[in-house]
């Protein structure tokens, strides 16, 4: 008996065990199939796709299709769209982290008139996704002449307090004595922020960076509205623009190569920083 329960778990053995794996493998295959198909399509020729069924195994056009996409694309070179997406995602992630760190520091470590009001105003913004206020936000951005610009892509999306709230929660868990010790050591507020608080927040910053980078990279509606110039398109919204409007047949290999390129950076970020990513996800929802 003791031997059977040695893992301290109620566990299926033998056949049941293999069914578990089988179920998971089928699940993984279903989840993977659309990505696999896109990858295959990005390595074959247009005729192979338009005369269905298309092959389910990669062809030999990998370099041609990706080169076509990156260098010329359909409306704009995909390389340029990748750059735009990268600037936007980095801008949103870094910008939001920067302003949130500063304001969370102010709210937690200072007492000043109006502090409560600031806190509640910022807290209010937690509730409203950009989708709900697109028309007036568009007008504001247009009024500043920020259409088709990186700042127009970035600023409206950092105007929310999720990150501020997270950093506030984290700062509250930093022992009071550390700030006192720093004061006794002679550290002024910004020195304490820079020498103590920031290094202690490293993992939180990194985890949040992963989440925000993906959030920024995957934006669709906002870039769709404010980038009318194809050379300012981000890659995620640019794919849809590659479909012809009339009855013409879409350039599927290039479109699929672009799709793969569009998912690659966030996938790399998620897989390589899996632990931080999961932590960031769980933190940001609590």
């Amino acid at each position, binding site marked *: 008996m003791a031997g059977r329960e040695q893992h301290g778990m109620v566990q299926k053995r033998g056949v049941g065990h293999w069914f578990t794996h089988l179920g998971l493998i089928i699940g993984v295959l279903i*989840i993977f199939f659309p990505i696999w198909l896109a990858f295959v399509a990005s390595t074959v020729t247009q005729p192979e*796709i338009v005369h269905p069924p298309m092959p389910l195994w990669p062809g030999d056009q990998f370099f041609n299709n990706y080169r076509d996409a990156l260098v010329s694309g359909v409306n704009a070179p995909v390389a340029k769209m990748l750059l735009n997406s990268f600037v936007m995602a980095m801008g949103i992630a870094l910008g939001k982290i920067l302003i949130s760190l500063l304001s969370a520091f102010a709210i937690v470590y200072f007492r000043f008139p109006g502090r409560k009001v600031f806190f509640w*105003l910022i807290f209010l*913004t937690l509730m409203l996704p950009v989708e709900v206020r*697109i028309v007036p936000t568009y007008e504001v951005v247009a009024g500043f002449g920020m259409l088709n610009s990186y700042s127009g892509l970035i*600023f409206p999306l950092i105007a929310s307090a999720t990150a501020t709230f997270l950093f506030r929660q984290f700062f509250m868990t930093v022992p009071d004595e550390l700030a006192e010790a720093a004061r006794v050591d002679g550290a002024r507020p910004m020195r304490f922020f820079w020498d103590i608080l920031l290094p202690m927040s490293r993992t939180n910053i990194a985890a949040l960076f992963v989440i925000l980078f993906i959030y920024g990279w995957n934006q669709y509606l906002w870039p769709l509205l404010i980038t009318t110039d194809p050379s300012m398109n981000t890659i995620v919204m640019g794919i849809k623009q590659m479909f012809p409007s009339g009855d013409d047949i879409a350039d599927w290999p290039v479109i699929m190569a672009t799709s793969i390129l569009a*998912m690659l950076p966030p996938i790399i970020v998620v897989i390589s920083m899996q632990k931080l990513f999961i932590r960031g996800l769980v933190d940001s929802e609590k």
Partner: protein
Amino acid sequence: MEKRVTFKGWLLPICLLLPQVIVTAVFFFYPAGQAVWQSLFIPDPFGLKSQFVGLGNFEFLLGDPYYRAAFTTTAVFSILVTVASLGMALFLAVLADRLIKGSGVYRTLLIWPYAVAPAVAGVLWLFMFNTRVGVVSWYLGILGYDWNHVLNEAEAMGLVVAASSWGRVSYNFLFFLAGLQAIPKSVIEAAAIDGARFWTRFRTIVFPLLSPTTFFLLVVNIVYAFFETFGVIHTITSGGPQQATTILVYKVFADGFVGQDLGSSAAQSVILLVVVGLLTVIQFKFIERRVHY
């Protein structure tokens, strides 16, 4: 909760807050206020003047069969997306939780789609089911089923639901797996010693203990289906056929930017705002309850 230690002064903290305050005021509060303000007006056909109509835009919307249809569509769509993605995720999480070794490998394999943008997911599924070149639609044709989501409303809805749920499975899987792994093994062992078989254990012990996670995911997924699926709808169906997949967020976009009906679009924004507000309140109530749990 308050900090015991604080630094003196008010100028420095105000300066520290300033970037966030400016960005939030200009790109958040002002537009949100504008949305509320605009919802009370109807612009004249030349866009020169607006006429104050009070709650007229709202009255019109609530009487508008198209808007009511969009409400129903959104409800159906979000329920289907939530049920499909939660169901699939729970199934996979329960399986992965039964493994002692290797659940980490499956986790790594299953979190990929989280990184795929909804709009890209839309393109991938559009490609599979494309009426001319789609692999899945072609094989369905061989089996004698004539797939055409461009004309068939039910098929269009099915496709956007599948594409929207697909990316969500990863997210829900992560939370379900974490929830399952947090259930003390001794509880399950006790049930096993009491003679409960797997399904009974799941129904009577595991699922009730998992209910906080499930409820949380329910709210989060509804919010997702309401707002973040715009990319899927726009890439696959553009709200068609016959507005069969026009969800509320899509209608705000279509009326405001395509139809240029700013008053109505703003009123729709305000209604959505109320919906998000309600969902947020529900979520906070729930989090409070979970703290006491």
